[in-house]
């Protein structure tokens, strides 16, 4: 038989365990988008593998305990840094797995490595639900199943009599078939359970688990002058389908971009754009819970009726709590997705989800085109003044002067009092063009010198920056010439996937632009960022890889829509109305919803805290067990000292240093004292009693029997190979013998 056909079962198991462990770390690295976990873990596991596992030489206990303490310290530091969350737990599990691999002595240790592997896999799933995570998860499950199967063989061989440990070719074929068959059955049955399990019950009954969702790349404030770089990640954030009134998809490649508004920022102070607090009731307090598929229309009915585009938006990873709902300008209708939503709605200031649960969110908005030509500007209309409250600091004179000069050069009156309102649109275009042509786009942000206004520094010193500088400059210059303007942060949608018929918005598509008022109530979008530079940096290159990536993204969207986004309505559509849930769903819903809100939530959280405390205690217990030999020595020493001390107090020396000995000795001694038989110092007790047969023969039969039995048992105990192994029953037997002898003696007296 060839060498390959005669692989040792232990070797096969260790290899499969290693593959499963590395696979779990890989899945977590992909989920967390942090390759360092994989690199460092692979390095650590490789070292452990070469020096410990392969050579079958577990590290010394002291070394393992020391490393374990270091791991606990590192994990504690990580928890302080990242907070108590999935990431910190996963880091701890990975480190613990490395330590455990150094300590593979029994099959139990191997099993613990597999349990840690599962824990890392669950952490990965809690971290991300991306297609790659799911794909790798399926592969990892197969690896784990395989490792567990070999673990059974490994454990059986370890526990049983020495025998041949090789796995023949036929056995390997059978194992492979079995793993495939069981894996397939598990996946099939698991999928059935996945579909049949009720949804939307007990959401966050036990608080927030896993990472909070985040809309990456986007920020609802603008802080100019902050060094660093803008995100260039191509991770998808939104999927958008754009249709016209007839329901036809109007998206196409290389079309003009859609600006998707997120935060509306109207207050500028010290380089920061923020949203001013409303004098009225804050929008967040006006958020209401709307049932699924509710259509919310603009207050101006005419506008609502004039929609011409519908955006069906899938937000892949919304934030937990308040999260912005991105929509184009000018939104006139909003339709709630398939889940009820607690939506804050102001068609001008934007939309947001007040009590988001994180994860995928679906909604759709209808908007109307805001073409400049359609605006009929009344020449006699009075321009809205620039609110002083929105500019706590007046626009820097240099910035203002620059705006005036630009307008004068273009032949437009810069003074708002003299300029007709119909020229405002032209004035904005002039400034926009100036910014686009005279300044360059750069992702590299540098720190603004202390005390200097960031926008002024951009305009006159740096003359290069990212979109926030351009938007801030355009807005401030517009305000300096009397035109109300505000900065908008959100995303640009321009990447159209022809396979899915959707626009894909990525993290790198986060953008900032300006909305300015070209007529009373007429806000239009202006973007001072050089479009060529922006697209050159943010748009993916049209290479073959891009085409492949698009196919992948199509599959990923399918994954997000069908698997990650599987919800109650999807379940209903698959199972129909004939699903026999036997009332379990309604009872569960009632119970878990009570848990989620109200007193039950406190109890549940109390339970979680109790679980954490229990786990921590368990962990401390494990640590103590690791050092148990040291603790046992300490305890034994203390007990010996106490016995010696007590005997010293009563003026006698003792050879009984074991507490069990001491107790038995005390009982027997008390019995013998009543017989005036001195306790021997060196002679074995039983021999000593035989020598004292003269005294013992004077006793009645039961007493003598009891004394002899007790001494015989004690004798056995003293000469037992391992006194610690004396059972509790045995001890109680000795004690009862001695007590019986005492009673007999009392009766005899």
């Amino acid at each position, binding site marked *: 038989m060839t060498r390959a056909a005669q692989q040792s079962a232990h070797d096969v198991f260790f290899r499969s365990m290693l593959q499963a462990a590395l696979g779990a770390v890989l899945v977590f690295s992909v989920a967390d988008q942090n390759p360092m976990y994989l690199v460092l873990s692979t390095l650590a596991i490789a070292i452990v593998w070469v020096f410990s596992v392969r050579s079958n030489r577990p590290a010394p206990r002291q070394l393992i305990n020391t490393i374990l303490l270091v791991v606990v310290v590192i994990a504690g530091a990580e928890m302080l840094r990242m907070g108590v969350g999935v990431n910190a737990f996963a880091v701890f599990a990975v480190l613990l797995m490395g330590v455990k691999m150094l300590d593979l002595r029994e099959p139990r240790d191997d099993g613990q490595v597999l349990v840690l592997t599962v824990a890392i896999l669950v952490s990965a799933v809690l971290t991300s639900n991306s297609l790659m995570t799911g794909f790798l998860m399926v592969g990892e499950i197969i690896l784990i*199943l395989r490792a567990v199967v070999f673990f059974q063989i490994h*454990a059986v061989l370890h526990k049983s009599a020495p025998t041949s440990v090789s796995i023949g070719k036929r056995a390997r074929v059978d194992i492979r078939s079995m793993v495939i068959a069981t894996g397939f059955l598990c996946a099939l049955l698991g999928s059935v359970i996945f579909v049949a399990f009720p949804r939307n019950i007990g959401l966050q009954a*036990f608080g927030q688990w896993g990472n909070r969702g985040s809309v990456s790349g986007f920020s609802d404030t603008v802080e100019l002058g902050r060094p660093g770089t803008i995100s260039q990640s191509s991770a998808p954030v939104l999927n958008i389908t754009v249709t016209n009134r007839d329901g036809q998809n109007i998206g196409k490649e290389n079309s003009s971009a859609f600006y998707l508004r997120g935060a509306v920022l109207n207050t500028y102070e010290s380089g920061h754009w923020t949203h001013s607090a409303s004098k009225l009731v804050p929008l967040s307090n006006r958020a209401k819970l709307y049932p699924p598929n509710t259509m919310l229309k603009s207050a101006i009915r005419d506008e609502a009726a004039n929609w011409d585009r519908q955006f069906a938006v899938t937000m892949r990873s919304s934030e937990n709590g308040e999260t912005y709902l991105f929509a184009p300008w000018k939104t006139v209708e909003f339709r709630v997705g398939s889940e009820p939503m607690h939506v804050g709605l102001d068609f001008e200031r934007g939309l947001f989800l007040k009590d988001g649960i994180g994860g995928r969110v679906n909604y759709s908005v209808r908007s109307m085109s805001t073409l400049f030509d359609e605006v009929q500007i009344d020449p006699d209309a009075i321009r809205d003044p620039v609110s002083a409250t929105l500019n706590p600091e007046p626009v820097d004179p240099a910035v203002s002067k620059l705006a005036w000069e630009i307008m004068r050069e273009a032949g437009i009156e810069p003074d708002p009092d003299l300029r007709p309102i119909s020229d405002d649109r032209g004035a904005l275009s002039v400034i926009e063009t100036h910014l686009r042509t005279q300044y360059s786009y750069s992702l590299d942000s540098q720190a603004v010198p202390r005390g200097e206004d960031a926008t002024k520094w951009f305009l006159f010193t740096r003359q290069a920056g990212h979109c926030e500088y351009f938007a801030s400059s355009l807005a401030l210059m517009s305000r300096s010439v009397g035109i109300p303007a505000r900065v908008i942060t959100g995303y640009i949608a321009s990447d159209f996937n022809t396979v899915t018929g959707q626009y894909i918005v990525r993290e790198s598509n986060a953008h900032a632009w300006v909305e300015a008022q070209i007529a009373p109530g007429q806000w239009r979008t202006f973007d001072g960022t050089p479009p060529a530079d922006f697209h050159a940096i943010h748009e993916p290159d049209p290479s073959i890889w891009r085409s492949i990536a698009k196919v992948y993204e199509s599959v990923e969207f399918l994954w997000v829509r069908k698997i990650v986004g599987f919800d109650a309505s999807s379940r209903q559509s698959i199972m129909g109305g004939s699903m026999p849930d036997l009332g379990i769903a309604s009872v569960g819903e009632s119970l878990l919803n009570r848990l989620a809100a109200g007193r039950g939530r406190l109890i549940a959280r109390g339970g979680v805290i109790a679980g954490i405390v229990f786990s921590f205690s368990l962990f401390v217990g494990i640590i103590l067990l690791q050092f148990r030999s040291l603790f046992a020595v300490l305890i034994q020493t203390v007990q010996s000292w106490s016995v010696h001390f007590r005997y010293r107090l009563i003026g006698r020396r003792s050879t009984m240093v074991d507490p069990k000995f001491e107790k038995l000795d005390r009982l027997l001694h008390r019995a013998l004292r009543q017989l005036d038989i001195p306790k021997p110092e060196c002679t074995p007790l039983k021999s000593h009693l035989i020598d004292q047969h003269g005294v013992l023969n004077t006793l009645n039969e039961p007493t003598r029997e009891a004394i002899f039995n007790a001494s015989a048992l004690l004798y056995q105990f003293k000469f037992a190979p391992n006194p610690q192994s004396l059972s509790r029953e045995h001890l109680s037997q000795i004690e009862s013998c001695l007590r019986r002898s005492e009673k007999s003696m009392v009766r005899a007296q």
Partner: protein
Amino acid sequence: MSSAVYQQSQSRRGRGIDSVDSNTPQQAGQPVSVLSKPIKRESKITLGGGVYVLVTLFLAIGAINSQNNLLFWLFGVSIATMVVSGVFSGNVLMQVRLQAQGVPDSVAGEAVRLHYTLVNQSRFFPLFAAMISEVHDEHSPSGRFESAAVIHLGPRQRSRVTGVYFGSSRGRYQMRHVRLSTRFPFGLIQKSLIFECPRSMMILPYQLAIKPELVRIIHGQGEEVHRRTDASGVSSEYWGLREYTPGDPKRAIAWKQSARLQRLVVIEHAQPIASKLWVWITRDETDPIMTERAIALGASIVFHSSKRGVPVGLWAPSMGVHLSPGLGKAHTMRCLRALGMINLHDEQYADHSPRAANADDVLVVQAQKKRVTTSGRVRMLNLDEPSAWLLNPDGLPENLGGAR
């Protein structure tokens, strides 16, 4: 009373001699049963299975709490794994048949191999990672049993596997049932089949590594051997030369004489005089450990004496054993089995010195403190001092009051 009459009288009283004679050793390795079907099936959740259930519960709570669909799927797979595990292991064991082989006599503390034949009559399902162990009951021997492992038994395959048993107590035991258990494939549930395979097992007393000079000194009273002139033997005394025959050890060749005689000759030694030795074992009813120690030491002396060609007899009237001195493997085994069959829970009989004590050497292995009345060539062994008769006093077995 002759020894035969004594044995008969003892056997009528239900003592061990009768059992010794009637217990002819069964043929080791021979099947004692046909392929048997299981008489009972058992299932239990393992510790790992319990942990797994907790993890599954945790997954369910996590999935419900976060509505994370991948967690829902993982939860579904977890449940499915439990179901598949149960179904698979049940089907695998459905068509397995087992046959246990006879057990040879063994010595306490030493390994004896137990052989089993396993047949998988299933057409489709292979058997993996199974263990075969003996089911313990009140008739079972105490000791350590290392299960027989079955890594893989394909459909329609037959396999012979071996377990190891280290008996710790001498005696005759019955092994009735054999358990075949597996946790395959995922270790969540342990499923077992109980087969009825009645067998008997004889565990002889411990063979202690006694000092080699013990027998020699006591028997020979300090001399090496008594030379015997009419036959060659195995003593160290020179007896004569003879021509080399194939099979003679090379060490026996007398090279100088062979060179001188121009042909190969070998040295023959004198045969030691096989005067009789009685091993007299006394009993201490209050101290079973000491009695066990005496039995083990007696058995060891019998074994080593027989090996040295000394006719040895057993004398333990307090325990109902009397075997006249004899030689040969069969006699040695008879002695050892007699000692192995002693039941300390039985009635104690009166002790008295062997009738032949005046003529033969008597070695008293005395468990009780009270000194026996001896005369003639009697030597006493003090059981409280293992260093006096053991090569390694620390090597005294645990059951005999040793440190391991």
